């Protein structure tokens, strides 16, 4: 599996300059974030896609292999690389505006009803713990955030706002304490 990951890293580097189509309909103020997401997707592009199978062991192996390859492709990744200090205030403005605005009661209820995940220590490039549920991300919030490519999703973990690679189940980046 490690060998497979290493060979993927070589391919990753070779195609880092490849172009991915721009994401449309992005709200203003998130250009830097969108660019960094696209860079991440370029790194990820040569990785094999998950395939459908009845073999759960193959799904798990492939997921671990993809996660290993991503970690090796960005070994120095740290919190703030994608949610940079420049774009974080924009995210906080949207998150806190949604959680304190006119629809805040329903939005908070959505998070509560999703059985919020608490007490988890996140690390960039770390695995999103397998046994933990997903906290529902309020659609009102998603409406005002930059759209993400397939394979990436926003997550809420405790008070942190997370960018997750869904196939690799990897924490790509997060904003600590983003949710009041």
């Amino acid at each position: 599996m490690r060998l497979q990951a290493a060979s993927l890293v070589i391919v990753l580097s070779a195609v880092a300059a490849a172009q991915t189509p721009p994401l449309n309909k992005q709200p203003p103020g998130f250009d830097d974030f969108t660019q960094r997401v696209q860079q991440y997707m370029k790194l990820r592009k040569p990785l094999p896609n998950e395939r459908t199978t009845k073999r759960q062991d193959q799904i798990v192996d492939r997921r671990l292999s993809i996660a290993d390859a991503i970690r090796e492709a960005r070994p120095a990744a740290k919190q703030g690389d994608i949610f940079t200090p420049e774009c974080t205030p924009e995210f906080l403005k949207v998150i806190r505006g949604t959680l304190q605005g006119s629809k805040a009661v329903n939005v908070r209820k959505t998070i509560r009803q999703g059985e919020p995940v608490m007490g988890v220590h996140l690390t960039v490039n770390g695995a999103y713990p397998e046994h933990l549920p997903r906290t529902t991300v309020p659609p009102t919030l998603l409406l005002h955030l930059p759209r993400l490519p397939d394979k990436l999703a926003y997550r809420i973990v405790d008070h942190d706002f997370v960018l997750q690679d869904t196939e690799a189940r990897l924490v790509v980046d997060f904003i600590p304490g983003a949710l009041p």
Partner: protein
Amino acid sequence: MRKMRRLAFLLLLVIPSTAPAWAQELTLPLKSGSVRFAVIGDMGTGEPPQYQVAQRMLEFHQKFPFNFAIMLGDNIYGGKTPADLEKKFEIPYKPLLDAGVQFYASLGNHDDTNERFNKFFNMNGQSYYSFKKGNVHFFALDSDYLDPKQLDWLEKELANAGTDWKICFFHHPLYSSGAFHGSSTELRTVLEPLFLKYGVQVVFAGHEHVYERLKPQKGIYYFTEGASGELRYGNLRKTDLTAVGYDKDRSFLSIEISGDDLSFQAISRTGVTVDSGSFRRPGAAPPSP
């Protein structure tokens, strides 16, 4: 100690399988050419009650041969190892799988989004998807992540679905009398306008660990079936929403659609019919005399 635990487990499996003779009386019409399916939600515990409900489903399948089942999320609680998948899905439903029953899953908050790659769940690698059986369009949604992309997709799919039955299923109930979670009001604000605009007639959800059939809301029939493995005993509140509710044991639901008529029968873990009935597709012409 281990032997004792195994014995207790086996007893739990065996005792409820001695369902009384009057149990599981078929109320569904069994019309020729009808679309027949089962509905289960919040089942993936791997514990004896899930196995017992699966056993009732198998028995019912002999009287009412349904071709497929829809899953309303929380398909696999806790760990997602190959052993977990076996214990929480493949073993309990093996006899149904062997009988050719297909399972179509939607994702709940306890599910890993990578379940979409498991062929047993027929999601074809997508966390939201649609499929058609006879004159019925099904739309499986990921209600944990209703982003604009998914809502755009749903709108297009519904717009192209014509005048057939349109059934949506997902994890979080838009209307519920459950005391633990209640109605998902924010999700309702984004989904209900689409359901009304494009004429969705029936919605199935789980998440609340009870069975509830709601009075039609704005002309749409809502069912909650979140007790096919888990249960929150006595968790239903008395509200104006409920047509029939059951929170005393686990359950599953069976549906038959023939032309413009939908019939339903909810069955408990012990084989008792806890709800049944039928209704005509809203907007359909009255039946010919």
